[in-house]
């Protein structure tokens, strides 16, 4: 476990360093030509991008682990429960219908949308949802949020709202500023710390609701905390970077393997794995030799969708953790 922690820590540092430095050739050429502009490139462009990749990935991983622990279901994740699509809906309504596209307004709208989605899911699927119920309810939530997002864009005053929103909705970390980083980082940090503090309670919850309650944990309060903290962090990140799928599903599965299947203890490792996955996906999208930057959400979906199918097959054949 210690070796794994050291490896994950080293991976985080490496991911951050590579995001800051690559591509190296153009950075060095710019520093040589205009040192001040080279410094601005590092601070104003690459720092927010590298930090957002780590932060958003960590947020998705941690929220995924917490939601999976809450529903006692390995298929629960921010995207499959409609949290990210709810956040996207909230941000689109605020920005394109109400005309407030500043980072604070959009983050507030996204948090409200994510919160609404999660609360509705809890009401629809129940506290300890069966896999099929959870997936159906999540699918319905995502479909409804997607349809309402399209409706909001169709009713927006700007006839080009679809085009304006498209690249953001596909997920992108490019060209974000330090101010935008701050609007994502503050809520995400609160959410990450809060979810990590809930780890012991979520571990007890995996033993059953009665056991957890007999140990002094208040389950109603725990549910509200997980839902609110997940919505806060994921919503703020979606508002700044758009909807990025599957990291919140993949990272907790690997993390639980490291922690012997303890869902609460898996929150921090899931955050680290999520950060590494998103950082790696961003590097691939920037550096792959196809001559253009791909939407990062496309890359994570291309990796995550087959993984999701693999997970479904494993569950059918008796995979329990």
């Amino acid at each position, binding site marked *: 476990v210690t070796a794994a922690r050291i490896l994950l820590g080293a991976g985080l540092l490496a991911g951050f360093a590579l995001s800051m430095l690559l591509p190296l050739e*153009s*950075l060095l*050429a*710019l520093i040589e030509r205009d040192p001040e*502009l080279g410094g*601005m*490139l590092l601070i*104003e*462009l*690459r720092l927010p991008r590298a930090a957002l990749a780590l932060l958003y990935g960590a947020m998705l991983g941690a929220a995924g682990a917490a939601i999976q622990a809450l529903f006692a279901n390995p298929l629960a994740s921010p995207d499959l429960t409609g949290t990210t699509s709810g956040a996207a809906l909230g941000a689109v309504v605020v*920005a394109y219908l109400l*005309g407030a*596209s*500043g980072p604070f307004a959009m983050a507030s709208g996204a948090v409200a949308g994510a919160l609404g989605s999660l609360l509705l899911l809890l009401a629809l699927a129940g506290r300890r949802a069966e896999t099929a119920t959870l997936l159906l309810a999540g699918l319905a939530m995502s479909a409804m949020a997607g349809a309402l997002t399209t409706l909001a864009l169709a009713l927006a005053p*700007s*006839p*080009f709202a679809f085009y*304006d*929103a498209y*690249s*953001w909705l596909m997920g992108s970390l*490019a*060209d974000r*500023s*330090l101010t935008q980083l701050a609007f994502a980082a503050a809520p995400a940090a609160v959410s990450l710390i809060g979810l990590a503090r809930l780890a012991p309670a979520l571990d007890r919850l995996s033993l059953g609701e009665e056991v957890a309650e007999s140990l002094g944990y208040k389950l109603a309060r725990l549910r509200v905390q997980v839902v609110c903290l997940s919505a806060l962090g994921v919503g703020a990140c979606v508002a700044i970077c758009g909807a990025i799928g599957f990291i919140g599903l993949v990272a907790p599965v690997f993390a639980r393997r490291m922690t012997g299947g303890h869902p609460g203890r898996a929150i921090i490792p899931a955050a680290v794995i999520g950060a590494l996955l998103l950082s790696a996906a961003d590097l691939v999208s920037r550096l792959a030799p196809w*001559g*253009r*930057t791909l939407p990062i959400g496309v890359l994570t979906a291309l990796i995550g969708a087959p993984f999701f199918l693999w997970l479904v097959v494993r569950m059918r054949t008796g995979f329990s953790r």
Partner: protein
Amino acid sequence: MRAFAFLSAISLALAGCWAPSEPHAPAAGQRPMRVVSLNLCTDELLLSLADPAQIASVTHLSHREEETALAPAARAHTANDGTLASVVALRPDLVLTVGGAGDRAGIARRLGIPLVDLPYPQTLEDVERSIRTVAGALRREPTGTQAVARLSALRATAPAQAQAQDALWLGGGGRTVSPDGLEAAWMRLAGLRQIEDRGDRVELEHLITDPPPILLRSDYRAGQYSRDQQWLGHPIAARARAARTIVTEGRRWTCMGLPMIEEVERLRREVAQ
């Protein structure tokens, strides 16, 4: 399929409270006098080529200053929402549209309404063809010939390819255009050559590490706060300047039709300075 078209025709007829059997096409050789356009790009052609008395309706988009330079002329005419259903009651004797969404042509044929469905232009030759087609349908061939002659004159006097200056077309959100597309063809008439790009969007990092000699910046909806405009407000965007920035009127690049002639003439003068 036939049943669907039949039902569509009935619903459209009911929407207009109008019998579909009534003939609406103008008699042979006569000018159509109730022409409607269902697309911003055909609005621009119609407003440029038709006698105002011929126009029955244009789309709501062309009523907006942000979308077309022809908005003042467009506002003299009834607005529609770009659907056949919204104009049936006007009893049009000619409908103009682009890229024919759905089965507009089939429905219009069944209703006895002549419809001209233009393809999206890919080249300057396509633009000329569209002008001639619309002018012919309006029975305004001399006006069409004059418009084509203006475009031909612009092409004949375009700076030689070797003299064209490298430039990057840039819109909000880092949007740019293909070096092989119609936008690049209009740029070449202004003496500019669109440089190779990395897709339909440029990242700020690319813009400062490999700055273009000329930045041709679109001012489309520059006064409106949006995510795309927010991109231009990024602290580093102020430093991501080319050797020279030329601002172009973004609304003229949406359809890249006749209003582009004036813009290219203006750009040519500015590039030459």
